[in-house]
């Protein structure tokens, strides 16, 4: 099973996708959501949680292991197999089969095949990517006939201690250019600072958006906050958040958590025999950019997000007014405004996102933005950006179900510099 590359739709003009309506997203499964793995309790490792999520996804649509012929995943949540979190090792591992990070802080398709007993796999790809790209890749594989029923896996880990701390007093390779001057999350703060300068706005005007996301997230059973911190989060809380890198406060940064999710994708024909309503993939597009120079500026950000939004519209044939459910990523809350403005959802133009936030973006209102709560409302899983649009279109979002039309959804992430957009619909046409 070869490692497949160059499957992305990332060169303009992409044209209407020739797989439109052939692939279906139909089921989802989640593990429990914890703050961290303690490094000792195997039944709470990322591997164990990934198996729980896969089984839940299969149960969700009423199929068994033998019905699956493909696994597409991100072993650690990031591209090229890199971990989204820090890794547990290297150190002496547990007894077999735990002889590496696989099954602990990474989870490959091969490991899942061994542990769960998949017998009919003919397509495994772990090369990894953020979850939007994995859904796109699975849709492409199904549309091209490489697999018929695929499980998409997305594990995200978090370990004891502070996240991604770097103790080095030397910088090498690409790290030379930021680390020498102490540049880190300041990158997001800088771009947002430029945005505020350009459009005459400020950090405090983010409050209605972040507070609404937390409200939405508290209604999602897999949210870290719903499970562990169900209290109300107010605008005052947001405004009092300690600064991490101006103008980025602790409440603009997603909270690292330990959780796994899995999705069942299949052909339109096979979906007819499964328990849930099919949600058809109308299009997937991707992009990868580089800054003009050292630092990503607001000009870079707006150019890249404009290109990707237009690419998605060209690939799906849709217009902004066709999008009922919109799920733009918020791993840093300051990302979302760039995406809303690029896609022009609900007519929002450049510089208008904060005015939009000040209006009615509630679940039951006319503009239910990120109805799943995004990462700010659920923790750093990213998977709410797939699960919520799926559930909204299937009409099983429960208390989160929006009251406006839910027939076409667009989910978009991860960064302005590297993005994937998936368009899904209740109809294959």
């Amino acid at each position: 099973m070869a490692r497949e590359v160059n499957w992305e739709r990332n060169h303009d003009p992409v044209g209407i996708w020739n797989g439109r309506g052939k692939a279906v997203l139909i089921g989802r499964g989640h593990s429990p959501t914890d703050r961290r793995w303690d490094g000792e309790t195997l039944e709470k490792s990322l591997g164990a949680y990934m198996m729980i999520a896969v089984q839940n996804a299969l149960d969700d649509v009423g199929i068994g292991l033998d019905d699956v012929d493909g696994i597409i995943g991100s072993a650690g949540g990031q591209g090229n197999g890199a971990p989204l979190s820090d890794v547990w090792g290297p150190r002496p591992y547990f007894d077999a089969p735990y002889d590496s990070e696989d099954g602990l802080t990474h989870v490959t398709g091969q490991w899942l095949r061994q542990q769960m007993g998949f017998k009919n796999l003919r397509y495994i790809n772990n090369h990894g990517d953020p979850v939007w790209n994995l859904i796109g890749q699975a849709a492409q594989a199904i549309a091209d006939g490489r697999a018929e029923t695929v499980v998409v896996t997305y594990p995200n880990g978090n370990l004891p201690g502070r996240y991604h701390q770097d103790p080095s007093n030397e910088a090498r390779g690409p790290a030379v250019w930021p680390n020498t001057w102490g540049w880190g999350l300041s990158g997001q703060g800088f771009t947002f600072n430029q945005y505020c300068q350009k459009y005459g706005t400020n950090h405090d005007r983010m409050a209605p958006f972040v507070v609404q996301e937390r409200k939405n997230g508290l209604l999602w059973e897999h949210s870290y906050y719903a499970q562990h911190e169900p209290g109300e989060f107010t605008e005052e809380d947001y405004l009092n958040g300690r600064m991490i890198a101006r103008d980025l406060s602790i409440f603009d940064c997603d909270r690292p958590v330990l959780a796994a999710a899995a999705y069942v994708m299949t052909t339109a024909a096979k979906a007819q025999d499964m328990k849930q309503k099919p949600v058809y993939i109308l299009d997937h597009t991707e992009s990868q950019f580089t800054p003009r120079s050292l630092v990503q500026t607001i000009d870079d950000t707006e150019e890249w997000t404009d290109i990707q939004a237009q690419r998605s519209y060209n690939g799906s044939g849709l217009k902004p007014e066709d999008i009922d459910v919109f799920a733009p990523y918020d791993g840093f809350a300051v990302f979302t405004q760039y995406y809303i403005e690029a896609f022009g959802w609900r007519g929002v133009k450049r510089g208008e996102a904060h005015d939009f936030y000040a209006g009615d973006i509630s679940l039951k209102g006319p503009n239910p933005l990120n109805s799943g709560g995004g990462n700010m409302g659920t923790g750093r899983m990213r998977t709410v950006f797939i699960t919520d649009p799926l559930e909204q279109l299937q009409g099983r979002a429960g208390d989160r179900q929006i009251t406006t039309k839910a027939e076409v959804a667009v989910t978009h992430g991860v960064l302005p510099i590297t993005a994937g957009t998936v368009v899904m619909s209740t109809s294959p046409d």
Partner: protein
Amino acid sequence: MARPIVPVPDPVSQPFWDACNEGKLIVQYCSICDRRQYPPEATCRDCGFDFHLSWQETSGRAKIVGYSITYDSRLVQWHPLQPFLNVIVALEEDPVINFHTNLIDDFGTNLTEEPDIPIGATCEVQFVEAAPGRMIPEWKIVK
């Protein structure tokens, strides 16, 4: 003053750091694409080749385009200096090219209040010693 993190040159960046030690700010230049490039890379980002890449000295003058203040860095060596200033300056003769600076006058001062950073202000490069024998570019606002 010693810097928290010292850059270690590699074959691609060595000419840049050597120039810093000589008091010059150089960037790459691709003659076929007619574009400057910073940070240095093995090939031109536009054409993808190294055939036409050379080094070009700059004026070292730049304008402030934005800033951030770091309160909680993931870079442990910088923690004692928090909160500290991160400024981006764009090269005067080619504003596409931008650089990091902590602004010399504010470096290592543990900011007690937010500075009033003048966006658009002109700065001049100066070279400071990050470690013995390793100079790095920093910028100072032209008063």
